[in-house]
């Protein structure tokens, strides 16, 4: 549940340097068509990325996770199990009287590949598959939101400077001084309270939305900081000066001059932040304030499994390993994306 904090700041200088190099290529007049002199930065990056074997492999794994998440209903159909049926409770001989799987290794069998969840007796394999959906959906939504907030405030601070910069800078300082775990937890009931209409049934999207909002509120600062720094340096560059002299409006300068040059840090930061959001989301669920039943969720599964350490370790091992693999793939991909954008970086 570590939200991306200070640890990413050491990338600042590197990124500023590299983006400015790229920015030199895309001239002031035709930023939307940057490819007229040699290869576009995008293509360069893509080539470098393809040369990075680890990057490609992790990219494929991440893609596989996405595809599995999208195809979950199909997999469920082929596999013949769904995530809401209580197989263990419906049939005799699967769970003991106190709810433990009867079969060895957590009830793993040809029918239940990863075994059964103790208690309700749902199929662990299909729960995991559907759990990817929850994780990815929230992580992507949070990434999107934090990117929007971070970009808006970062550019505003960097470009406008003065009081705006000061204000945004202090807000960031304060938010970064918050003990983030306590605040994530304490904000959940507040946000949930704001969202839910009294005595209506709590729809399933509610806990989704609440988690997304809470993580976004406290997750945009590092991106904003980096973009502010980058914008500050870009602001002084010739092509921006030129645009100003020719009388371009601030909106035009921001959208046509600055933003195209900021895609690199934005993309890199978002890719790096994504696994952090995945783990933060799971952390909230692990503490019991995240996504609720019956939506399958990895963090909640791990929290449940921690109760069965001695008696049913299978229940922990599958979600645990899946989580590690998932985050690892995302981390590797993030590293590779950064390396591809930044040939100076070290690999």
């Amino acid at each position: 549940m570590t939200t991306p904090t200070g640890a990413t700041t050491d990338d600042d200088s590197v990124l500023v340097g590299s983006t400015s190099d790229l920015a030199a290529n895309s001239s002031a007049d035709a930023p939307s068509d940057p490819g007229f002199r040699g290869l576009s930065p995008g293509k360069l990056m893509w080539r470098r990325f393809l040369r990075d074997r680890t990057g490609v492999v992790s990219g494929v794994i991440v893609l596989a996770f996405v595809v599995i998440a999208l195809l979950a209903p199909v997999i469920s159909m082929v596999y013949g199990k769904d995530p809401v049926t209580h197989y263990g409770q419906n049939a005799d001989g699967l769970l003991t009287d106190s709810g433990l799987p009867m079969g060895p290794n957590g009830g793993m069998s040809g029918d239940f590949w990863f075994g059964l969840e103790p208690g309700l007796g749902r199929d662990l394999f299909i729960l995991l598959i559907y759990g990817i959906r929850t994780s990815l959906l929230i992580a992507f939504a949070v990434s999107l939101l934090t990117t929007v907030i971070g970009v808006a405030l970062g550019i505003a601070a960097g470009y406008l400077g003065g009081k705006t910069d000061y204000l945004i800078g202090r807000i960031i300082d304060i938010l970064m001084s918050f003990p983030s775990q306590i605040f994530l937890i304490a904000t959940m009931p507040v946000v949930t309270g704001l969202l839910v209409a009294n005595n209506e049934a709590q729809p399933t999207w509610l806990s989704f939305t609440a988690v997304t909002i809470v993580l976004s509120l406290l997750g945009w600062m590092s991106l904003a900081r980096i973009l502010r720094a980058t914008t500050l340096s870009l602001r002084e560059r010739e092509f921006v000066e030129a645009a100003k002299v020719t009388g371009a409006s601030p909106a035009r300068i921001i959208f046509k001059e600055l933003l195209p040059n900021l895609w690199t840090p934005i993309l890199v930061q978002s890719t790096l932040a994504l696994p952090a959001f995945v783990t933060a989301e799971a952390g909230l669920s692990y503490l019991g304030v995240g996504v609720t039943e019956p939506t399958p969720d990895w963090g909640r599964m791990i929290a449940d499994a921690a109760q069965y350490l001695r008696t049913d370790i299978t229940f922990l091992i599958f979600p645990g390993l899946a989580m590690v693999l998932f985050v690892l793939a995302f981390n590797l991909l993030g590293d590779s994306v950064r390396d591809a954008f930044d040939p100076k970086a070290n690999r």
Partner: protein
Amino acid sequence: MLRFLVRRSLGALVILLIISMVTFALFFAIPADPARLYCGKVCSPENLVLIKHSMGLDQSVPMQYWNWLSGIFVGHTYPGGDVPHCDAPCFGWSFVKKDMVLDTLMDRFPTTLSLTVGSAVVFLIFGIGTGMLAAHKQGKAADKIASAASLVATSMQIYVAGPLALWALVYSTDLLDLPTYVPITEDPIGWFTGLLVPWIVLSLIWTANYTRMTRSSMVEQLTEDYVRTARAKGMSGTSVFMRYAWRGAMGTIVTVFGIDLGVLLGGAIITESTFGLHGLGELAIRSFIDSDLSMLVGVTMVAATFIVIFNIVVDAVYALIDPRIRLA
């Protein structure tokens, strides 16, 4: 230096003040009503009024905030007389724990401190050591193994690694003790064995972080011009490595370590929850669950204070390490 410290300390106070306000506001926005909860099952409206009064909750939120703030300097007497007088520095009385907030915080802090310091020693030594080794042997097998292992370990989360470690080291093998906290003054051996599993898990994850960070900043330093110059002038690889690259990389490491330390000392909720340790993190979540407002504000402020202080310390230390940076 003095001017820097004064200026930053004032800034920190302002930040803490704002954080305390936000905390107050936020906790009043949480739907549960502490007075109602304290009132218990059989709660007549009249009694609720009395309780609200004795808890000071019948006053406006800004007034309550003022009571809290002034209490730190001059102490606070709760209305109604059911509660002992709270001497300055007063962080309030916990109506749930029936104890002074400050006493509880002091009581919990050693656990968090032990957890943090114990693992920090390990992850600093091993993290920096492995990171330097990897940077030194850049591209060789040792580097590749260290990098891969640290990548896997950073992708572990406490809530995955913690239960797995408990299973592997305690439940299935009985190799180590279940995590508990015994004060080092009472029983140093018990203190050590009781915290061993949490230390191992924390160290594993954090060592990986520091390995990666050390390696990357060392490698970066090694490509800097001044290092190249030194090499070209005939300085030996090892001296360059230690005298130049390490000094350059130390800045980053100190910065990140300072920030991490500040966060860790405020209490790690998931870690303490996973291992059932009663430090500040566990206190925070417990107070949240109990709607123990004064305790929650207290523990939040302690955590925020650590973060803010260590930010200043980091900047000061950074300046000492790197003479190019001037403090103004």
